[in-house]
């Protein structure tokens, strides 16, 4: 990052454009449950978050144009993904102590009782 080659006005413009985009995405976050993908709010919210994260990482964290940092970040993220998603996923899928676990045992109980405790009682 050479201080002599900075175009202040140009870079400031990018910051403001990203701010506007992030504000619009935040507004969409609020109206989404009533406007679109109403049946899969969780998925829609996470998709919006990923777009926001992309803008922040690329423009606010200056990853765009970082030829040396980007491969390192991708490599490390891939490692994390492999261990977090695949390895832990396999482990969780083959969970052998469900009956002994306080949490999973309670989940089975809760799943059976979900219709007897209507959500409308909660405010």
């Amino acid at each position: 990052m050479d201080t002599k080659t900075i175009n202040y006005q140009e870079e400031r413009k990018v910051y403001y454009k990203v701010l506007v985009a992030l504000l619009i995405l935040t507004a969409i976050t609020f109206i989404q449950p009533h406007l679109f993908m109403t049946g899969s709010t969780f998925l829609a919210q996470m998709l919006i978050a990923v777009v926001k994260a992309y803008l922040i990482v690329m423009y606010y964290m200056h990853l765009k144009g970082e030829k040396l940092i980007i491969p390192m970040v991708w490599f490390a993220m891939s490692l994390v993904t492999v261990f977090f998603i695949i390895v832990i996923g396999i482990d969780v899928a083959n969970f052998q102590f469900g009956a002994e676990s306080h949490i999973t045992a309670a989940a089975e109980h809760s799943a059976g009782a979900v219709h007897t405790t209507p959500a409308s009682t909660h405010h």
Partner: protein
Amino acid sequence: MSHEYVPEIATDREGNEYEVQGWQGDFYAGKLGFWLFMLTEVMMFGAMFLALAYYNTLHPQDFLDASASLNRVLGGTNTVILLISALTMGLGFLKMRTGDVKGAKLMIWATILLAIIFLVIKGFEWRAEYNHGIFLLHDQLLPESSLPFGQKLFFGLYFTMTGLHGVHIIIGIGLMLWLLQRINADKVTPEHHIFHLNIALYWDIVHLIWVFVFPYYYMIGAGGATGGH
């Protein structure tokens, strides 16, 4: 007012002075090291999100109900505050790089102010939840309470994750105050700004974590039949 870089000086037993060759003089290594640190942050919060997602699959309805009861107005306000603070931090760094040290300091102060407002709003939110009996090791989150178990898990993780995020905000304020002190001592200048860049990156990762915390906790139950506050 010129800002000539004042190097760190180490003195040996005989009183000879040496210029310290550290991360200030190695821009790329300083930046790479900080990116690696940020990945450890992603792993820490990632593990929490993983636990959250797993418990969510066990208690989907409880999670929606608990999410619907959170105050989305306060959560949304804090989202916008963090968003603007990321801008002020970024603009401050831009001003530093272009030589406007005074403007950079002003932007850092603005970021500190926004961070304090974030914490105050979070404090009000937590207090309201405490008054409703919902807080760690308190009233409705105790094992013997009648609150559905899935909601206890949700709120337990909610306080843990937003609390840890709040700790990061407090650390961020401390780092920004340290940065201001370093700028005043001419240890951070337009030509030696890696310290400023790394603290700006830290603030961005704090913002980035909130970008996922907010929808997962506040919004997933927003469109449910249960409604909310």
